[in-house]
C-alpha cells in the first residue's frame, strides 16, 4: 500500500517535472524568436516612415533617403530565384517521392542534403565562376541563380516528404480507376500534398530572402535602381550589411529599419500563404 503510494507520487512528480521542462524549453524557443522580432521592431520602427520605403538613398550627410531600389531588387531576386528554383525543386521532390526508391534516388537525396549544408558564400563563388565571369558582369540573373541553388534542396526535400505522406489508399484508388501513374501523381498526390509543398516553397523563400553572402559575388548592389536582369541589382540584405558595417549612425538606423522591413516581408508572405492554403474546403 505504502509502496504503491510512493510509486504513484514519484510518477506524478516526474510527470510534472517533465511537462514543466517541456514548457520551459518551448518558452525559451519562442521568447528568442519574439526577442529577435521585437528588438528589430523596436529599433527599426523608430526610423521607419513612408519616405524610407518610397525614396532612394541620399548621399551621406543628407537627411532622409530610403531603400526603394533595395526593396524592388529583393523582390526581383526572390521572384527570379523562385521561378528558377521552385519548379526544379518541385519536380526533383516528386521524382524522389515517386520514383526515388532505387540507387539513383539515394544519390540524389544525399546530394540534396549536402547541398543544404553548403555555406552560402561557396554558392556565391560557384555562381561567380559559372555565370558572372562568362557574362563579364555582375547581374540580377546571377543573383537569382545563386539564390535558386540555395532554395533548391529545401523545396525538393520538403516536397518529397510531403508527397510521401499522402496515404497509399488514395494512390491505389486512382490507379484502380485506370488512371495512368503520371496523372495520379499530378492530380491526386500533388494536390494532397499541396499545403506541404507550398510550405516548402515558403521555407525556401524565407531562407533566401535574407541571404547576403552569395549576393556579394553576384548581384553586387546597384545605387541607381533596377536596370534589367543583365545588370547589377540592389538587395535589402546587401544594403543592411553595408549600412551596418559603416561608421555612421544614420546608416545604422537605416539598417535597423531595413531589417525590420525584411522580417515583416518574410512574415507577411508566410502568413498569407498559410491563410490561402487553409481555406480550401471545410
Amino acid at each position, binding site marked *: 500500500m505504502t509502496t504503491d503510494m510512493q510509486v504513484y507520487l514519484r510518477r506524478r512528480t516526474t510527470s510534472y517535472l517533465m511537462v514543466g521542462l517541456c514548457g520551459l524549453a518551448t518558452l525559451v524557443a519562442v521568447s528568442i524568436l519574439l526577442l529577435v522580432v521585437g528588438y528589430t521592431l523596436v529599433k527599426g520602427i523608430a526610423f521607419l516612415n513612408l519616405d524610407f520605403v518610397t525614396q532612394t538613398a541620399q548621399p551621406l550627410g543628407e537627411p532622409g533617403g530610403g531603400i526603394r531600389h533595395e526593396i524592388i531588387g529583393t523582390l526581383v531576386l526572390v521572384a527570379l530565384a523562385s521561378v528558377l528554383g521552385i519548379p526544379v525543386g518541385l519536380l526533383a521532390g516528386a521524382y524522389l517521392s515517386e520514383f526515388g*526508391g532505387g540507387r539513383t534516388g539515394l544519390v540524389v537525396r544525399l546530394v540534396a542534403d549536402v547541398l543544404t549544408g553548403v555555406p552560402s558564400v561557396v554558392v556565391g563563388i560557384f555562381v561567380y565562376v559559372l555565370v558572372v565571369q562568362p557574362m563579364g558582369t555582375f547581374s540580377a540573373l546571377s543573383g537569382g541563380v545563386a539564390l535558386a541553388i540555395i532554395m533548391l534542396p529545401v523545396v525538393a526535400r520538403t516536397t518529397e516528404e510531403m508527397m510521401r505522406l499522402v*496515404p497509399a*489508399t*488514395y*494512390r*491505389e*484508388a*486512382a*490507379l*484502380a*480507376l*485506370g*488512371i*495512368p501513374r503520371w*496523372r*495520379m501523381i499530378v*492530380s*491526386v498526390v500533388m*494536390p*494532397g500534398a*499541396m499545403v506541404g509543398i507550398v510550405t516548402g516553397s515558403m521555407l525556401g523563400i524565407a531562407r533566401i530572402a535574407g541571404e547576403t553572402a552569395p549576393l556579394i559575388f553576384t548581384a553586387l548592389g546597384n545605387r541607381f535602381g533596377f536596370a534589367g536582369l543583365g545588370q547589377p541589382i540592389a538587395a535589402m540584405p546587401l544594403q543592411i550589411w553595408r549600412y551596418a558595417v559603416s561608421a555612421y549612425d544614420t546608416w545604422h538606423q537605416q539598417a535597423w529599419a531595413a531589417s525590420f522591413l525584411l522580417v515583416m516581408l518574410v512574415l507577411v508572405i508566410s502568413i498569407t500563404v498559410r491563410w490561402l492554403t487553409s481555406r*480550401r*474546403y*471545410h
Partner: protein
Amino acid sequence: MVMQEERTMEPQTTPGPATRGIVVQKLNAWYGPLQALRDVSLTILPNRVTSVIGPSGCGKSTFIRCLNRMHEVVPGARVQGKVLLDGEDIYAPGVDPVRVRRRVGMVFQRPNPFPTMSVFDNVAAGLRLNGLRRPGQMSDAVERALQQAALWDEVKDKLKQSGSALSGGQQQRLCIARALAVQPEVLLMDEPCSALDPVATSRIEDLVRALKERYTIVIVTHNMQQAARVSDMTAFLLMGDDRAGELIEYGQTRQMFTNPRDERTEAYITGRFG
C-alpha cells in the same frame, strides 16, 4: 429446368459463358520471396456475385488484386498464370494494366474518396483523369453513377462539398459511384463493409444485389453471413503449409453453405477454425 432459369435471367444477350466473365488459370502470386497464392483456377460468371472467403492471410485480397493487375503495384510483387477477361489474357505481353483497370473497377476496405476533391469531382475523377471528358455529359455521367450507387438523393444538394465530409457509409457508396462512373464490366470489392456499421453494411449489400444486373461482382469478405446473403458463387481459400493461399472449394453459395464438399470448408463455415 436450370437451363430454363439461366435463360430467363439473361434474356437479351450474348455468347456463352466461355467468352464472358473471368477465367483464372493456375494463378500464382508472390510478395518478394513469399508466395501468397498457389495454382488458383476458377471461372467467375458474368452478372453474378462471387464471394471470396477464408481466414486472414489466406490471400483473398491478393487474389482479387490479381484480377485488375493491382497486385503488381506493390514493390517486389509478381504474378504467374493466366487471367482471361472475356477470353483475353490480361497478363499477356503488351497488355497495358491501365486499360485493364478501366474495365475492372475496385472498391477498397476503407472508404477512400480523394480528400482534395468535392463529391462531384470524386465521381468525375475517373472520366476526367482518363481524358474521357465529354463536355456537357459530365454531370449526366456523375448523376447516373450516383444513382446506381444509391447515393444521389443523399448528396444531390452537396455535390460541391468535400467527399470526406460524408458519413463512412456514404463515403463507401461514393467510392462505388466513382468506380462505376468509368463503366467497368467487373467490380471488385475488397471487404467493402469491414469499416462500416450494420445499417450502412446492409445498404451496401442491397446495392451489391442490385448492381449484378449490370456488372460482374467479386467481393472479398470476412463475414460468412454476408457471403451467404449477397453472393451466387463462393470461393473458399485457405493457406497451405508454406502460408501460400490455395483454393479449397468453389461452387454455388447455397450448396457450399448447406452441403460443402470439403471437410475444411465445413470446419471453417461452422466456425471450428479460422
